[in-house]
């Protein structure tokens, strides 16, 4: 078991510390007294003579008292080591003595004036007091060298002798007792609160609220000081009282400080006070009140809440303004003006805060609506309805983000599915195409069969085109293509396109007309995909344009944008809207059963959008117009 957990050791330490403190106090006092009487600077004889001279001087004064009381001096000093000589100061006549002339150690003298006191009636009738010197006596006292009798002087001489011999030992005692006191007190403070098994616990005394305990200790101390000051006149009692009260105060202080140590260790110093408990109670009450107010406010609809807020604001403004006017008018104009500054700062801060919070919410709302679904409004410094509003916006953006991610996932899945399925379709399709071709090479006499084979040939080619377009369309619309943007010369590309289609256009009897500006027009695009776009549009022109007409291909710049248009006259009536035409699998005329998948325009639009451009269709009667818009390449 550890030393600080043993109760017996603690009690022993308490008692020993008491003894050490008593020793310490006494030795310090005696050192102080000895220091006062120069024990450490003079020889024993000098010290002794000085102290005994003081005593003899007070004794000579005492003789005056004895004389006035009419005591027999010879008898009184018979058993004392003191001789006296009383002479008339004026005549020098010896009035009384017991001095036999033996050698003395110290001497002292005093003069006593004897007054004659009387009262007489003055001329005005008042009673007047008058004292007249009647005579002077000189009192001399001698303390003999050899003190044969036992009295105050002999005892004092012995005390001085002993003290003088112990004057350095006393310093040693002070040091020892101080060390012992410090050690024991340190141990006691360390051990305070420690119990068997290594736990730190409060005892009954430590459970008393600390502020009450402090007050009690204060009462005890005040009481003992009052007692001592009451007894100041009675020396003998005072000594006993000092001892008893000192003992009581010592143990009180020790208990108090040990309890303090325990409380610090257990962390109950502040918690276990009446003040703390009161504060906690008040805090709880306030919290409940606040919760209640909050509850009431939350029940009020939004509009009424703010109306109530504004109504409450009015008296506040009135009171503050009134106070300002009062100060300005009746106290000091300068002070009144000074008061307005903090008020204005508070009002402005509140206003700026509200505006900035509102701005943040507005900004966030705009961003989210513009498509930044992962944007989050910072709600850290917002409160109340502002916070609710911002959080709902954030939730909307989170929901949107989720939806977008899901959509992207499903689109990617769709593309994968289409790609895989089309691979699987391609293999049997290869066989079909090849064997149709082989049949065509056979000599078949039946003309109907030849006609049917023609249908098979045409339709299998169409199926091939459809499968290829399907893969491309799904990839383009989901952005599942790697686009390498570089500077592209639109004029060159249009020229190349027309070159590629020259023969087909001739076959369809369509004359292409290309209008390009003199200087080259450049945009940021991927040449391969832009060619696929033009390819699809030109394919449409070859298929659907009225033979014998012209197709216009224009490119021009307009306000930082590059606009490319493909215009042609449709062969058939276009009884369909531009939007519908752009949908997948829609063809200009449902009844027309020509080649093509109906995916061309959709692929073209997706590819243009992938490259950061825009594609629009415009139908005006029979005039079909495809418009591609890119932003101009920044120089």
């Amino acid at each position, binding site marked *: 078991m550890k030393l600080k957990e043993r109760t017996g050791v603690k009690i022993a330490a308490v008692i020993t510390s008491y003894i050490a403190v008593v020793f310490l106090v006494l030795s310090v006092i005696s050192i102080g007294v000895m220091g006062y009487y120069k024990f450490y600077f003079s020889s024993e004889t000098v010290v002794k003579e000085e102290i005994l001279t003081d005593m003899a001087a007070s004794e000579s004064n005492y003789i005056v008292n004895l004389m006035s009381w009419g005591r027999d001096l010879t008898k009184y000093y018979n058993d004392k080591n003191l001789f006296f000589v009383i002479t008339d100061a004026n005549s020098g006549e010896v009035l009384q003595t017991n001095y036999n002339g033996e050698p003395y150690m110290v001497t002292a003298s005093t003069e006593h004036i004897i007054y004659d006191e009387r009262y007489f009636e003055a001329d005005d009738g008042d009673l007047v007091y008058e004292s007249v010197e009647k005579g002077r006596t000189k009192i001399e006292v001698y303390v003999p060298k050899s003190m044969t009798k036992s009295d105050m002087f002999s005892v004092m001489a012995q005390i001085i002798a002993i003290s003088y011999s112990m004057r350095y030992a006393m310093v040693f005692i002070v040091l020892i007792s101080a060390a012992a006191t410090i050690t024991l007190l340190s141990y006691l403070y360390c051990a305070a609160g420690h119990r068997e098994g290594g736990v730190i616990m409060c005892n009954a005394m430590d459970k008393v609220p600390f502020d009450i305990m402090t007050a009690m200790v204060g009462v005890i101390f005040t009481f003992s000081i009052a007692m001592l000051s009451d007894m100041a006149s009675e020396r003998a009692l005072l000594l006993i009282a000092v001892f008893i009260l000192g003992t009581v105060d010592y143990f009180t202080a020790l208990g108090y400080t040990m309890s303090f140590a325990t409380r610090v260790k257990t962390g109950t110093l502040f918690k276990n006070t009446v003040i703390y408990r009161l504060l906690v109670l008040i805090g709880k009450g306030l919290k409940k009140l606040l919760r209640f107010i909050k509850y009431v406010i939350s029940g009020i609809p939004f509009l009424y809440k703010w109306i109530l807020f504004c109504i409450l604001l009015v008296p506040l403004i009135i009171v503050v303004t009134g106070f300002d006017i009062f100060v300005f008018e009746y106290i000091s104009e300068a002070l009144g003006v000074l008061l307005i500054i903090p008020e204005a700062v508070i009002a402005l801060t509140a206003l700026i805060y509200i505006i900035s919070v509102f701005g943040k919410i507005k900004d966030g709302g705009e961003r989210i609506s513009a498509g930044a679904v992962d944007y989050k409004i910072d709600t850290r410094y917002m409160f109340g309805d502002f916070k609710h509003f911002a959080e709902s916006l954030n939730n909307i953006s989170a929901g949107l983000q989720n939806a977008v991610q899901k959509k992207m996932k499903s689109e990617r899945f769709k593309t994968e599915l289409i790609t895989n399925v089309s*691979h*699987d379709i*391609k*293999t049997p*399709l*290869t*066989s*079909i*195409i*090849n*064997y149709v*071709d*082989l049949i065509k090479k056979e000599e078949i006499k039946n003309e109907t069969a030849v006609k049917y084979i023609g249908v098979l040939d045409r339709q299998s080619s169409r199926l*091939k085109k459809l499968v*290829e377009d399907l*893969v491309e369309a799904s990839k383009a619309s989901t952005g599942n293509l790697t686009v390498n943007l570089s500077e*592209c*010369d*639109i004029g*060159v*590309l249009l*020229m*190349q*396109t*027309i*070159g*590629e289609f*020259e*023969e087909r256009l001739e076959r369809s009897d369509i004359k292409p007309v*290309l209008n390009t500006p*003199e200087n080259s027009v450049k945009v940021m*695009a991927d*040449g*391969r995909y*832009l*060619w696929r776009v033009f390819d699809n549009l030109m394919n449409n022109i070859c298929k659907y344009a009225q033979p014998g007409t012209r197709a216009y291909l224009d490119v021009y710049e307009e306000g930082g944008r590059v606009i490319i248009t493909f215009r042609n006259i449709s062969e058939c009536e276009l009884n369909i809207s531009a939007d519908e035409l752009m949908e997948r699998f829609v063809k200009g005329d449902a009844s027309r059963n020509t080649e093509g998948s109906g995916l061309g325009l959709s692929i073209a639009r997706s590819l243009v959008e992938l490259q950061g451009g825009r594609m629009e269709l415009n139908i005006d009667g029979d005039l079909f117009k495809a418009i591609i818009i890119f932003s101009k390449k920044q120089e």
Partner: protein
Amino acid sequence: MYNILICDDEKDIVNALKIYLEAEGYNTFCAYNGNEAVSIIKENEVHLVLLDIMMPECDGISAMVKLREFSNIPVILLTAKSEDTDKILGLNVGADDYITKPFNPLEVTARVRSQLRRYIKLGGSSRKESDECITIGAIELNDNAKRVTVDGEEVNLTPTEYEILKLLMLNEGTVLSPKEIYRRVWNDTAYAAEGTVAVHIRHLREKIEINPAEPRYLKVVWAHGYKIEGEKSK
């Protein structure tokens, strides 16, 4: 008489290819997976392989790798995958050409002919390089005789087409814009007349390429111009 191995897990496709190739006068072997193909090539003299990529057991790519360990005969890959990455992978492991399904029979026979001619007739023997003769891949241009051959077969070109081809071949790998081509071939800077360059290039491609839509040599760099490039795999 050349021996051609056709390897595809689809029997009908193998059969159809067999009919076409035998009509062209080739001998054929048939295999239905990669392992069969490798063992047939080990046991017989095979001059060319048509190899499908997606097959059970041993696919085309693994068969390619095994085959290249002991033989350098031309291999043409048949694939349903049309992505560029698949084509590049095939060429990287040692294929000489590829054909995407569904294919045109005429294209297959043309590519077979081209690969065989280069392997048997031209392969191995080093070519005489002279000032008059420019060779890129299978295209050979003899400036003295004004003669152009592709895979050893003579091609009839108009004088303009010939000049364009010569210009592009002299600048192998460089992209020339239509304007530049027009200026250097016609020796003129006539405005908007360079549109005719595209038409001539189209015709040229139809004459020298097996599949003008997917040219081997005369490439269209869309929105920039044209260039001639040798096959990267060789």
